[in-house]
């Protein structure tokens, strides 16, 4: 048994410096796709929507007049738009892609005769709990009850790696718990199948308040490529109140860590390179 101890010690410390510092070695995998409106044309908007296998990119109209909606909550990271129109769609290597409000994952762009694509300002949904309260209650330790509501197992594979030496979620005060009675948060992966709905609801009901709900992966956020099936229920937030949405297919381990830290108020949402205009920006209570 001492040989195992020696082997373990010899590996040294491999833990990611995230979130204190960036971790470029972990960021080869993009955590999201970002739309840069300055690089978009009507033509590439229509082509990208045609190529998109889910409802992440949906276009209406034609070259003269139309609209593109981009919903990161449905983006399965297939890479087609980034290859088709790299000047408009870029992979995001920063893992801080989780958000508190569903609307923060959406962008809308319109174009009409005589002008290039212009972004519409979106009403910001005000959902989820206030950051300060989360931090006070859960900032030091968060016990997470995970439920697989019908995933492909990619999300679970990434979640299991959070306990591995590279990520070690316990150092951040995050723990998985087998009992919903001891849990502070429900972390849901997968598309909420018909057969899992009851178990999901019972698990949520068994978690005492205050409790948080995190939707991890686009299956939980919007159904991903399983949206609209006869066996699937649809987005998690139609069943339960969701506090944090972590996009990705699957979300990378650092993106999951960021989502959990966002839920407890120990991290911030990312400011994107070309931020979406927000209707009524500067209103109190945002985020």
């Amino acid at each position, binding site marked *: *048994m001492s*040989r*195992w*101890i020696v*082997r*373990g010690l010899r*590996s040294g410390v*491999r833990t990611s410096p995230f979130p204190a510092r960036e971790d470029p070695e*972990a960021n*080869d*995998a*993009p955590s999201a796709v970002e739309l840069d409106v300055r690089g978009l044309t009507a033509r590439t908007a229509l082509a990208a929507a045609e190529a998109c*296998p*889910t409802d992440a990119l949906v276009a209406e109209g034609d070259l003269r007049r139309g609209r593109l909606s981009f919903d990161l909550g449905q983006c*399965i*990271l*297939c*890479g*087609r738009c980034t*290859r088709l129109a790299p000047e408009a769609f870029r*992979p995001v290597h920063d893992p801080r892609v989780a958000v508190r409000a569903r609307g923060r994952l959406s962008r809308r762009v319109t174009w009409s005769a005589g002008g290039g694509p212009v972004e519409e300002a979106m009403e910001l949904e005000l959902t989820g709990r206030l950051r300060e309260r989360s931090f006070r209650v859960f900032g030091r330790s968060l016990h997470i009850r995970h*439920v*697989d509501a*019908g*995933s*492909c*197992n*990619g*999300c*679970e*594979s*990434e*979640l*299991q*790696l*959070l*306990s*591995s*030496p*590279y990520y070690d979620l316990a150092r951040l005060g995050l723990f*998985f718990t*087998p009992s*919903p009675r001891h849990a502070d948060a429900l972390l849901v992966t*997968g*598309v909420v*199948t*018909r*057969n*899992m709905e009851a*178990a999901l609801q019972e*698990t949520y009901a068994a978690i005492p308040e205050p409790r948080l709900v995190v939707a991890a992966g686009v299956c939980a956020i919007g159904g*991903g*490529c*399983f949206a*609209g*099936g*006869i*066996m699937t229920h649809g987005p998690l937030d139609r069943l339960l109140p969701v506090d944090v949405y972590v996009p990705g*297919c699957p979300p*990378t381990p650092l993106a999951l860590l960021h989502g959990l830290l966002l839920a407890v108020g120990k991290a911030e949402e990312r400011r994107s390179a070309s931020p979406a205009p927000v209707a009524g920006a500067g209103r109190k209570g945002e985020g």
Partner: protein
Amino acid sequence: MSRLAELAPALGLTPEAGPPGELRAVCASASFTDLAARIAVDAHLSDLFASVNPEGVVLTAVFSLAGDPDWLLLSTLLSGDRFPSLTPRVHAASWYEREIAEMYGLVPEHHPAPVRLRLHDWPEGMPPMRCRLAPGERAPRGERPEVVPEVRGQGVFQLPLGPVRSGPQEAAEFLFNSGGEDLVAVWPRLGYKLRLVERLAEGRPVEAVLALAERLAGTSTFSNGLAFVQAVERAAAVEVPPAARLARTLLNELERLHHHFGAVGRVADATGLLVAAAQYAMLKEEVLRTCAALTGHRYSRGILAPGGLAAPLAAEGMAELAGRLPDWRRRAAGLGALLEDTATFMDRLEGTAVLEPGYAAQHDLVGPIGRSTGVDRDVRRDHPYAAYAELAFEVPTDARGDAEARVRVLLAEIGQSLGIVQQALDRAPAPSAVPPDAPLGAGSALGWAEAPGGETLHFIELDAGGRVRRWRARPPACVNWHPYAHACASGNNLTDYPVIEASFALSHAELDR
């Protein structure tokens, strides 16, 4: 001439050639079961599925024979909703027929246990693969019939575990029946993750279904995507350039590596060998990071395209792989040797959850589970695809069928995979040009790949517009879950259970789909 081609006329069949390597024979519905049973005496039943066309319901059985690179597809058009069950004569047909019955509303007559496989409270009379529902309409909730046998005896205690499990794991329920410490019986109740991907695919373009195939199961993402895209290529008679075939081989093996590292790590975790679990988890993470460096995605999603790859493998990724590979080989070999030398670990595996060779052979098992019971079958060698015919590798087997045999096969496969990756690197797959959009028209074909859990077999029919009319996906877990309950009941105790489950390393998403 292949042995399957010789076999067919002896049975009164005149097979037509389908895509290369596929022999297709059609028979009358009255003789289907008898013919299938006779072929299955020597051949491996690789799939049995239904599909609906304008004339009615077609049943197709897929066979392969050891040492023969061909596949034989035997189809029949059913007259009516009933057909004589193949299961009394070919036990491996059992779960296929249960799935056909519940999904298509057919009745396999004289099936010994025609209970539901994946449906829970779905109402009767609305077979999910045939029923019409308006967009957004949900079927009402009916009764959930009990599908597992009741165990009775003095002191037998029943404990249901799941579908919400203890850690971040897939959802599945297990009914434990124990007498004291002894594990009398464990029945898996599956289907919690049923998404019905095959129905979602109908009428959709190939690119959309490729995305579905890649997301059928996360830890066999690339293998399922590869099997699907190869079916499309075979249906359209599209040639894949050698460099792309080599790149696909590389990615297929990297997936096997990260899956097997994870699986061995979970066995170590189940026995409390935490350092080993951490060491294997680190290896798995490193393989995933290298896949991301090569393809832009940790699970290599989005890199496949009909005709080749959607983008060349990144040069930086190839350099990273070349740099890491010697270190992985050294660490994997060292860890494997240390595990085999750790008596407290090996003792937990020896004699645990035994699948006797005779029992296993009735189920036509695939992959490492099959190979750990002596089934010497691997589609990389037996039905070569991608660049496997040009590379040197062995297929390890072990005849004992216990948890130790399963883990030894996983460890040996890790070594073999690392060797294949080295050979692929030495041949330096040059960045291949992105293929032009392959013109797709009507056609049908099989596609297959050796996923980490065993062979994954897909079948597609495309319509004239190149859209998917029918997609059948039969990943390895569909076969390998079948003997699980029997293995659990082979004289184990409660504390063995985590070791049993980890040693099988079966995917729920692959079965439930």
